[in-house]
């Protein structure tokens, strides 16, 4: 198998996932008990540490199975307080802005690097997370944004592509070029893109045959021109509402993430596509922000979710790939999810993707383009 390390960097702004239902489900589920998942086979470790205290979890919304919270509390006695952010930059702005007291967060890889360099993270003590040490797929260790695994432990991974309603779109788009052509053509005003400069600019760059992370001004200028042509045909720029819009049929083409795509496909006839030309590949990781009041609880959570049975529960909810070894997951996870290539893309799919590794110069150039794009 080819060395996939370079692909494991990622970049992008990931914003939360959908659903009212998530939040209401969250509130509903907080009262209910989890139906005991069968832990047949696999290496199930008992998390018997009775810790008490509170875990303050700052996370993407709709990113944890609501059942996991009470289950964790039952297992460890730790109560959970949740706050949600909508983008990595939100998280960064808050932490840089002096917010202290979060015990656990789950930013995307490139943000892990930024936060680590800004001294906003506390080190991970792998001795406290035996489950992770044992069950993590070695591919997810030593990732480029954290080569010594000092600051982060992988949470899940995914791709950036687009989802389209197969019943409302006659054609079968397979590339970014298709996406653009259909958006500026027959499906004008029924298209959304993510509210993220790296994703939209990156995907356009890739369509033109350049690198997702390019900082070449002429290449970026080309991408900008394409984007400006696309702008008048957009229904909205959103990272949080496109799932809903796609399900409602108001949007038929949406630039987005694989998990959301799979979620739409589960409800309506739709397909998530990783574009032919390429796209982005990302990993989200657990980190412990500076100023954490209960790092032990944070470690306990990581350990808890690295139990394959618990991880399966997570993956079945979020539809994002799990970093736990595949063979450990197999016995405990819903086979449909396990075999869903949107959730667990094939290596061949991943090969053509890049991870976010945009330099400060690249970021500044992209900001400018993004402003122009939005102001158009």
């Amino acid at each position, binding site marked *: 198998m080819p060395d996939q390390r370079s692909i494991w960097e990622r970049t992008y702004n990931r914003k939360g996932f959908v659903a009212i239902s998530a939040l209401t489900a969250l509130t509903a589920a907080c009262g209910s008990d989890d139906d005991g998942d069968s832990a047949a086979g696999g290496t199930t470790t008992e998390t018997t540490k009775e810790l008490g205290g509170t875990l303050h979890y700052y996370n993407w919304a709709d990113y944890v199975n609501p059942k996991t919270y009470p289950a964790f509390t039952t297992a460890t006695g730790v109560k959970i307080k949740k706050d949600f952010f909508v983008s990595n930059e939100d998280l*960064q702005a808050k932490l840089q802005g002096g917010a202290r007291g979060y015990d656990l967060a789950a930013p995307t890889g490139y943000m892990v690097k930024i936060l680590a360099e800004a001294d906003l993270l506390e080190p991970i003590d792998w001795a406290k997370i035996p489950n992770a040490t044992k069950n993590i797929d070695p591919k997810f260790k030593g990732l480029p944004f954290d080569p010594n695994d000092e600051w982060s432990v992988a949470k899940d991974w995914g791709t950036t592509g687009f989802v389209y309603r197969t019943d409302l779109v006659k054609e079968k788009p397979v590339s970014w070029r298709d996406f653009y052509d259909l958006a500026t053509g027959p499906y004008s005003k029924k298209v959304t893109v993510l509210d993220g400069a790296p994703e939209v600019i990156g995907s356009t760059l890739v369509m033109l045959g350049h690198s997702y992370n390019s900082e070449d001004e002429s290449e970026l200028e080309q991408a900008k021109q394409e984007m400006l042509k696309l702008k008048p045909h957009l*229904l*909205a*720029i959103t990272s949080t509402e496109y799932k809903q819009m796609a399900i409602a049929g108001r949007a038929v083409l949406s630039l987005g993430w694989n998990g959301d795509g799979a979620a739409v496909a589960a409800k309506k006839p739709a397909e998530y596509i990783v574009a032919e030309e390429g796209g982005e590949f990302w990993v989200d990781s657990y980190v412990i922000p500076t100023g954490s009041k209960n790092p032990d609880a944070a470690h306990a959570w990581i350990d808890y979710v690295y139990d394959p049975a618990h991880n399966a529960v997570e993956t079945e909810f979020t539809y994002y790939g799990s970093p736990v070894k595949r063979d450990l997951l197999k016995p405990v996870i819903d086979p449909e999810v396990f075999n869903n290539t949107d959730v667990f893309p094939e290596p061949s799919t991943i090969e053509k993707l890049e991870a976010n590794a945009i330099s*400060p110069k690249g*970021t500044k150039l992209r900001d400018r383009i993004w402003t122009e794009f939005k102001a158009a």
Partner: protein
Amino acid sequence: MAGRSGVGGPRYPAWLALPGAAWYALFFLGPLGIMAVFSVSRREGYTDVVYDFSLENFRYLWDPLYGDVFLRTFGLATFGTAATLLVGFPFAYYLARYARRKTLLLLLVIVPFWTSFLIRTYSWLIILSPDFVLFRFLRDIGVTGEDFSLIYTREAIYIGVVYNYLPLMVLPLYAALERMDWTLVDAAQDLGDRPLTAFRRVTLPLVLPGLIVGCLLVFIPLTGEYLIPVILGGDLTVFAGNLIAQQFLTARDWPFGAAIAMVVIGAMTVMILAFTRLAAREEQYGG
């Protein structure tokens, strides 16, 4: 200590203003001051801010792209002010002159604003949705076409703006109109003025101060509005407020964001100083 006589209530010593002034100095001017410092700093790497005095940010801002954004913001603020004035003035007039139970009616204007601003604005998204009763009805009776949709459009932003800023215009207008002596208007008409002329010559001058306050209360905050364009406009348009928020939340270029903010603050300060000088003169020479 407290002296006597003079218009304007009993005389109280100026040092009573000290606590308030100190609070402003510390928690308002302080922040703005630091913002000013940031606007002449620059970003280094991904997160650091370096304080060497440089006007680079402002130079970067001097560009048709950003000029467009400011122009568009000015346009929105002007539209909002004009629209709330057009909608709010007849309303305030009716309330002040003809209505009974004025306090109740006035309260009824404010009550909707005790729900959260966010919820009110999101509700407009529902009302304007093509799948909701309003537009389904309009489509059924043929007033609007099949594909007509207002959500995530400029028009939706305008509706949201007028909705949320209306009370800010109505309240000062009402306050000014309420103090009017309507017999003056009647007298003018008795003396031969047509209603509109009476309005122009009698009512308008007396109402002007309230009108100006209303305009200021709407115009200035509107220049920084950014949630309504995001929620109702699908985040498809950039105004000054969005630009600033973007720099801080997404682009992480705080110095640049600070520079944009300084421009907005500068424009605002000029307007306010002009207004307070005017108002002070009014107070002195009667009004």
